């Protein structure tokens, strides 16, 4: 099964980013392909590499980089949503990319499932 994920909230403030990651991890472990994680609304804040969470906490940005580099998951931030919230190529995490909503449409079309996580 090929899966796309739409993530609509930023890291730490809501559990959405955690649930999306745990779901993606479990899907990959079961042999499914997680095609892409598309960041929308405040979700684009997941794409900054400037985050510096406490040592004893999870590092959510690092999780996305890992999914991208190790498992070939495209991590994509919507450009219009990113611009509103100060996310751009300057601060982009490794493995992440800015793109448009057309790409989300492609993701919706080419995958068997599109799951949404948010608030």
């Amino acid at each position, binding site marked *: *099964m090929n899966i796309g994920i739409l993530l609509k909230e930023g890291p730490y403030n809501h559990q959405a980013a955690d649930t999306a990651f745990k779901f993606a*991890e*479990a899907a990959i472990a079961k042999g499914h392909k997680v095609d892409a994680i598309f960041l929308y609304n405040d979700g684009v804040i997941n794409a900054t590499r400037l985050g510096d969470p406490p040592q004893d906490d999870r590092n959510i940005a690092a999780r996305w980089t890992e999914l991208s580099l190790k498992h070939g998951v495209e991590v994509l931030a919507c450009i219009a949503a990113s611009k509103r919230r100060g996310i751009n190529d300057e601060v982009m995490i490794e493995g992440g990319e800015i793109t448009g909503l057309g790409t989300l449409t492609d993701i919706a079309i080419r995958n068997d499932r599109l*799951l*949404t996580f948010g*608030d």
Partner: protein
Amino acid sequence: MLHTINKSPFENNTFTTCVRFLQPGDPVLFIEDGVYAVQAGNRFGALIQSVLKKNNPVYALKPDLDARGISAIAEGVKTVDYAGFVDLVEEHQVSSWL
């Protein structure tokens, strides 16, 4: 279609709204703060039972139940872990009621 609900029913009407749109047989999965709906003895027990009676299976995400200290859950509600969540998604398209 799998319906996921991630809001506490005590503060937000997502669960009661979702129920109105449920089709017979559609499973409901409570995740995140949504899992408070299935705690045994709370005032949503009757609504949960009415959903079950319409042949809509009801699930709750076990890691979210554990995180919130919920061990006793309403009769008839099944628990799944993230792998079980993936299984449900294999079987159904998904409507995530944010």
